[in-house]
C-alpha cells in the first residue's frame, strides 16, 4: 500500500501555531465536520496525506497505520487477511480516515458485542501540545506502563494532540454471517433482546426500525446455521448492504433533514422509550437510539439521564446548545485542567468537545 509520511510537515505546522498563538482545526477527510460544537476553522491542519501502513503482521492481530489512511483502503487490506476492525466504525465518505474515526470515538453496529474504538487502541504516536512527537502504549495486547494516554485520545476530537500513527487490535472476520428480520414492535424487540442476552446466540449487530427487528448472527458455519434455524424470522437476502447502510448512516432513516438528529446512549436492557416511538432507529440491543426530534434539548437529555445514559446532538443546528451532554462540575474542572496541561498553548481544536475546554 502507498506510504506517505508527512509528520515533519505536521510538526512544523504545530510549532508555527505555537509561535503564532493560533488554534488549529485538525482534520482528515472532513467527513465528520458536522460532529461536535462549531469551532474556529481558519487555521487547518490536514492530516489526510499522512497515510499508509506502518506495520501489519496478521498473526499478531494488530495493525499500525498512519492516521490519514482511508478506512476503505485499510479494511480492504485487512479483509484480504481474514481480519476486521472489531468496532465496525462508520465510514461517512469514501475518503474518511482511521484518524478521524479514532478522534471522534465512533463505533458501529458491532460495538456492544466486540467493543468500542477505544477498547482496541493499543498505542499511538502523536504530536503533543509542545510540538513534540511522543508515543504511548505499543503493539502488544497488554501494557500497563504509564497512564493509558493512547485510549484517552479516542473521542477527544483533536483537542489533545495530532494523531500520527495508531496501533489497533483486530479480530478474525467471522466465517459465516446471517441476518434475520423479525416482525415486532419496540417492546417486543426489547423483550427478545433480553431473552437472547444470556444465551450463546452469536449476535453481532441488531437494529429495530419501523416494526421490524434485524439481527445479524456471526461466527462459525455450524453455529450460525444452527442458531438461525432456532429463531422465528426471515433471512434477509441483501444483508451486507443493509448493515453497510446502518453502519455508514446511509440508511433511508438518516435522510430526514428537517429535524435535529439525536444519539441517545443508554444502558443495555433499558426498556423501550415509549416517548420516542416514531422517528427512531434503535441499535446495540437497545443501548443506542437514533432519534429525530424537535423536542426541547432539556427534555431529551432528562430522559436519557433518567435512564443512566446521555444524549448527543449528532446533527443539527441549535444555537447555544452544547452538542454533548452536560458534565458534572467536578468532571468539567478536571477535564479542563487536563486540556490545559496537555495543550498548554491552547492550539488544538478548543471548544469542539465542550465550550470550557
Amino acid at each position, binding site marked *: 500500500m502507498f506510504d506517505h509520511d508527512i509528520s515533519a510537515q505536521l510538526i512544523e505546522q504545530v510549532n508555527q501555531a505555537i509561535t503564532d498563538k493560533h488554534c488549529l482545526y485538525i482534520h482528515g477527510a472532513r467527513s465528520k465536520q458536522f460532529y461536535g460544537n462549531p469551532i474556529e476553522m481558519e487555521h487547518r491542519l490536514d492530516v489526510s496525506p499522512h497515510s499508509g501502513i506502518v506495520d501489519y503482521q496478521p498473526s499478531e492481530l494488530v495493525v499500525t497505520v498512519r492516521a490519514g489512511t482511508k478506512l476503505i483502503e485499510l479494511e480492504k487490506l485487512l479483509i484480504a487477511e481474514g481480519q476486521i476492525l472489531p468496532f465496525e466504525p462508520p465510514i461517512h465518505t469514501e475518503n474518511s480516515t482511521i484518524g478521524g474515526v479514532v478522534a471522534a470515538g465512533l463505533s458501529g453496529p458491532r460495538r456492544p458485542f466486540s467493543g468500542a474504538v477505544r477498547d482496541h487502541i493499543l498505542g499511538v504516536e502523536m504530536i503533543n501540545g509542545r510540538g513534540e512527537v511522543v508515543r504511548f502504549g505499543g503493539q502488544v495486547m*497488554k*501494557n*500497563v506502563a504509564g*497512564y*493509558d494516554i493512547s*485510549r484517552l485520545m479516542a473521542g477527544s476530537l483533536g483537542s489533545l494532540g495530532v494523531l500520527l500513527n495508531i496501533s489497533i487490535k483486530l479480530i478474525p472476520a467471522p466465517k459465516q454471517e446471517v441476518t434475520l428480520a423479525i416482525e415486532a414492535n419496540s417492546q417486543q424487540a426489547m423483550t427478545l433482546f433480553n431473552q437472547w442476552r*444470556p444465551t450463546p446466540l452469536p449476535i453481532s449487530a441488531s437494529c429495530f426500525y419501523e416494526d421490524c427487528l434485524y439481527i445479524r448472527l456471526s*461466527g*462459525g458455519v455450524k453455529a450460525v446455521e444452527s442458531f438461525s434455524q432456532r429463531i422465528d424470522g426471515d433471512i434477509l437476502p441483501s444483508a451486507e448492504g443493509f448493515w453497510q447502510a446502518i453502519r455508514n448512516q446511509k440508511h433511508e432513516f438518516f435522510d430526514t433533514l428537517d429535524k435535529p438528529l439525536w444519539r441517545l446512549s443508554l444502558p443495555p436492557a433499558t426498556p423501550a422509550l415509549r416517548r420516542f416511538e416514531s422517528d427512531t432507529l434503535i441499535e446495540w440491543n437497545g443501548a443506542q437510539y437514533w432519534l429525530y426530534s424537535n423536542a426541547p434539548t432539556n427534555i431529551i437529555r432528562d430522559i436519557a439521564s433518567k435512564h443512566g445514559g446521555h444524549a448527543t446532538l449528532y446533527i443539527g443546528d441549535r444555537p447555544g446548545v452544547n452538542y454533548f451532554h452536560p458534565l458534572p462540575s467536578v468532571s468539567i474542572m478536571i477535564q479542563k485542567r487536563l486540556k490545559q496541561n496537555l495543550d498548554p498553548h491552547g492550539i488544538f481544536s478548543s471548544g469542539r468537545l465542550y465550550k470550557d475546554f
Partner: protein
Amino acid sequence: MEEPTKIQSKLISKFSEFLDEEAILSDADELRPYECDGLSAYRKTPLLVVLPCTIEAVQKIMAICMRFGIPVVARGAGTGLSGGALPHEQGIILSLARFDKIIDINADHFTARVQPGVRNLSISTAASSYGLYYAPDPSSQIACSIGGNVAENSGGVHCLKYGLTLHNVMEITLVTAKGELLTVGSPALDTPGYDLLSLMTGSEGMLAIIVEVLVKLLPQADEKQLIMVSFDKIETASHAVSAIISSGIIPAGLEMMDRLAIQAAESFAHAGYPTDVDAILLCELDGSKEDVSEQIEIVQRILTKGGAVDIRIAKTAEEQAKLWQGRKSAFPAVGRISPDYYCMDGTIPRHQLAHVLESMNQLSKQYDLPIANVFHAGDGNLHPLILYDANKGELEKAEKLGADILSLCIEVGGTITGEHGVGHEKLDQMCIQFSTQEIQQFHAIKSSFDPHELLNPGKAIPTLHRCAEFGAMHVHHGKLPHSDIPRF
C-alpha cells in the same frame, strides 16, 4: 508503644472525629503487616493506617491530608507484585479493606455494583446463581480485590478473549485528592467528554481513590474444552501459539509452561502434567457447542502439524479444573523449589516468543540463576520467575537479570509490564521505555488530578531527575543504540 510523632498525633485526633478507634492503626505492631505488598523485598513503615468504611469518611480523610500535605497510599488486598502499595514514610495508608460489600447484582443489565475491597472471585461466586460471571481472573483472584484490579488494570488467564479489567469495567466512583466525588464512565456503552475511565484504570492509585466500581458480567459459556499439548522444544510450542491465533480462533486462554515450571507445578499440585517435555500449552476453547466442536478440530490439526508430541483433551470438568489448578498454583510451586523468586511481567509481540525465550535462557546461564517460565502465551505476556537465594546475597544479581529481561522486551517492541504495574519496582525501566517528553506528559496528567502530588507519590512515573541519575538509554522504536553489538 512508640511515642507518636507530633503530626501523627494531630492526624489521629482529626481522624478520631469521624473514625472508630479500630479504624486507626498507629501502633508499631499494627503497622507491620502494611509495610509491604506482594513485593516483599521493599518495606517501609507508614505514619498511620486508616480503615474507613464510608465514602464520606474517605472524602474527609482526603480533605485533611490535603490540608496538612500528607501523602496517601491507597491499598486493597495488598497482593500487588510491583510495590504499588509500598507505604510512604511521611504518609498514611488508606486501606479499602472494609469496603467489602457487593452492593447490587443487576441480572437485567448484566452488571455488578461493588465496593473496592470486594475480592475478585467473590463477584463471580455471587453472580453464578444468575448464570453470570466476571471475566478477568488474575491468578491471585481468591485474595485480590476489585479496587486493586482497577488500579492495576489486571489481566489474567482469560483476557486473551475477554479483555483486561478496562474492558470489563463500566463506571468507577472516585474520591479526588481534594476530597471531591468524581464518577467516570457510566452504565451506558459510552460517556461524553474525555475517556477518564481509560485514564483511571491502571493509574496505580496516583490520580484518585477508587470507592465504588460497576463491573460488566458475562453469561457463562455453554461449552468449555481444555486441551493440554506437549512439545519437546520450547521453540515449537512458541510457533504453535502464533499458528493458533493466525487460524482465526481466539481461545479463551492460551498458557505456556516450560520444563522447570511444569516439574515444580506437577510435584506441588499433581495436575497430571508430563514432566519429561520441554513445554506444555493449555488451550481453552469456549462458546456455543457448535463453535467449540468446530474449533477443537481446527486446533488439533494445527497442533499435530506444528510438531506437538502429545495432545490431550480433558474429558470432564474435574479434569479441566485439575489442569488449571496446576497452572494457577505454579507461582507457589516454584516458591517451594527455591528460597526466593523474582517475578517479571514483560509483554512482547507473539512472533518474538521463541527468540525471547531463547535469549532468556542465555541470560539465565550468564547470570547463573535458573528461570522458570509460566505465562500468558496468547497475549505475549511473559512471567519469568528468576530463582535466587537472598541469604546468599543473590537479590541484586536477580534484579539485574530482571532488568536485562525487561530491556529485551522493549528491544523487541514490547513493554516492561503487561499486568502487574510499574509501582515502585519498575521506575528505572520506565526511563528506558519512555523519552523525557513522554514522562513529562505523564506528569502533566498526574498534576491535572493531583497537583500537590499527595496520591501515592513517587510511584509509577519516575521523576526526570531519577532517569538522569539512572542514566538509562531510551530505546527508540525498539532499537537499542549500537544494535549490531551482540548482547548475549
